[in-house]
């Protein structure tokens, strides 16, 4: 089974790092979508099925919190698991995001295995290098 993954971050280098990490983890990827902000992410999800979204918080145009709120209010999008990948350090804010349905939180800078392990926890094990 191949997964459609959406990476939402305004930093190209971070999008590329996450994509590379996912590839190295052996995740069977169908489509890898990338978006620079929440608006672009919503456009991607309007036209494509996404199995997992990795979302930054601090982004221009539409930030990650607004994107997460829009997704949780949408009948179809609320089913898409969201992992926040962010520099956010406030446990208060992180807990609030968990209550909005965020599945996991990865703090930047992250070790590649953190992304891998979080994805395994959400998507289930796949036949890849561990």
């Amino acid at each position: 089974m191949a997964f459609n993954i959406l990476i939402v971050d305004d930093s190209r280098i971070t999008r590329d790092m996450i994509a590379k990490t996912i590839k190295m983890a052996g995740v069977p990827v169908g489509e890898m979508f990338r978006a620079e902000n929440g608006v672009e992410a919503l456009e991607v999800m309007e036209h494509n099925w996404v199995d997992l979204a990795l979302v930054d918080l601090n982004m221009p145009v539409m930030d990650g919190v607004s994107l997460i709120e829009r997704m949780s209010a949408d009948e179809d999008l609320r089913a898409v698991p969201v992992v926040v990948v962010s520099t956010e350090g406030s446990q208060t804010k992180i807990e609030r995001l968990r209550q909005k349905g965020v599945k996991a939180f990865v703090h930047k800078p992250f070790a590649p295995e953190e992304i891998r392990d979080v994805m395994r926890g959400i998507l289930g094990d796949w036949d890849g290098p561990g």
Partner: protein
Amino acid sequence: MDRDKLAEALFDTACSVLEEGAYVLVDPPGEEIQASSGPAIAARVEFHGHFAGALLMEVPEELALEMAQNMLNEPDDSEGAARDAVKELLNMVCGSLLPAIAGTEPEFAIGAPEEVGRGEVDAAALDADAVGAELSIDGRGVRLALLTKEVGT
């Protein structure tokens, strides 16, 4: 937090983030830093919340390119990648520094890092409220300046 502790937090956080995020090794304190007049990339990020301020970082361009390549694990000698790497690493330093200073309960809003002219770190460091730090990576200096307003002691 007093200025010495702020400076220590800034130095320690920057070391940790650059080592973990850019896969570089920071030289032990006391190592000589080469004077650099070559090109450098500098960026600034502003934050507000529990307290407000700005964090600036300047990285020699050659080092920034290496960091970008490390982060991408592939050769990419584009200036764009180096600039993006500096801004994103600054973002990470800021995100790790604020809870180190204020604890993990207070909330902050961190703006989008922006590239600024070389020399702005120097200018910021002259501010009476500024705290500075300089790291050495293979003898090349990475300089940071933290400007804050009303940090509790």
